[in-house]
C-alpha cells in the first residue's frame, strides 16, 4: 500500500502559485442526493443529482504585492470564475499526480483571523462557477 503524505501540495489560483503560503486544502466534489423513495417502499432509495464543487484553502496572510491578499482580494469582487488548481505535489500533472481543476468563484475570504501571538492565517473558499465542475486532468 502506498500512502500519501502531504508535503509539497501545489496550490494555484488564477494562474498564481500560492503553495508557499498554504498549509491546508480541501477539495469537495459532490453530487446532490435526491430522495426517490415512493409509497410502498421498504427501503429508502436515493438518486444522484447534479454536481457541485468547493475548494477551500488555508493560507498564511501576506500583504506584499503578488502574494496572498493582493491575489485573492480582487477576486472577491469579481464575478468571473478563475481557474483553481490543486495537485498532490508540485510536479507536473500525471497519472500519479493528478490535478484537481475547477473554475471557481471566491465567495469567502477571511482577511484576518487568529489570536494574539499566532501566525496570521486566512481561509479562502472557492465554489464551482462553470458547467465543467471539478475535473481531474492528468496532463
Amino acid at each position: 500500500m502506498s500512502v500519501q503524505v502531504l508535503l509539497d501540495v501545489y496550490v494555484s489560483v488564477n494562474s498564481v502559485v500560492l503553495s508557499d503560503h498554504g498549509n491546508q486544502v480541501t477539495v469537495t466534489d459532490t453530487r446532490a442526493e435526491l430522495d426517490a423513495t415512493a409509497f410502498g417502499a421498504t427501503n429508502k432509495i436515493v438518486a444522484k443529482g447534479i454536481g457541485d464543487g468547493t475548494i477551500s484553502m488555508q493560507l498564511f496572510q501576506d500583504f506584499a504585492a503578488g502574494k496572498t491578499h493582493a491575489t485573492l482580494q480582487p477576486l472577491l469582487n469579481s464575478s468571473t470564475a478563475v481557474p483553481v488548481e490543486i495537485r498532490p505535489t508540485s510536479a507536473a500533472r500525471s497519472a500519479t499526480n493528478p490535478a484537481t481543476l475547477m473554475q471557481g468563484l471566491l465567495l469567502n475570504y477571511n482577511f484576518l483571523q487568529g489570536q494574539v501571538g499566532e501566525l496570521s492565517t486566512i481561509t479562502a473558499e472557492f465554489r464551482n462557477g462553470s458547467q465543467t465542475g471539478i475535473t481531474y486532468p492528468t496532463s
Partner: protein
Amino acid sequence: MGNTYRATGERAKAIYGEDILELDLSVADERDALEGKQLELLPRTYRVLSDNFATAAQGETFDAAYPVEIESALIAGGHIARVTEDDTEPMTESVTDDTKTPDDTDVPPTEDGATPDPDKKGK
C-alpha cells in the same frame, strides 16, 4: 482599460465592422458578447512582475486573452502588466547582494553618473 476584440457575430459585424477594435466594455457586456459569440477576445502581450505566476517567469512576456475582470485582478495583484508598443524592452533581473562575488564590491558612480570600470578601482 479596454480590450481588443474582433467581431464574429453578424450583429456585432453590423455594429463594429470587421476590423480589429478596441472597446471599453463593462464586465457584463463583455461576458454577453463573448458567450453570445458576437465578439472574439484577441490576445495581447503582458509582462510578468511577480515571482509566483505560473504562466511565465518573472520578467518574461507572454500573450494571453484575459477577460476584463481576470486581467484587472492580475494587474491589481501586482502579477502582470500590459506591454505597450513603446515598452517592448525585456526586463532584466537585478543582481542581488547574495549573488555578488567578493570582487563585486559596490563602486559609487562618478560625478557624471556613469558607473566606473571596477577593474580601475583604486588605481
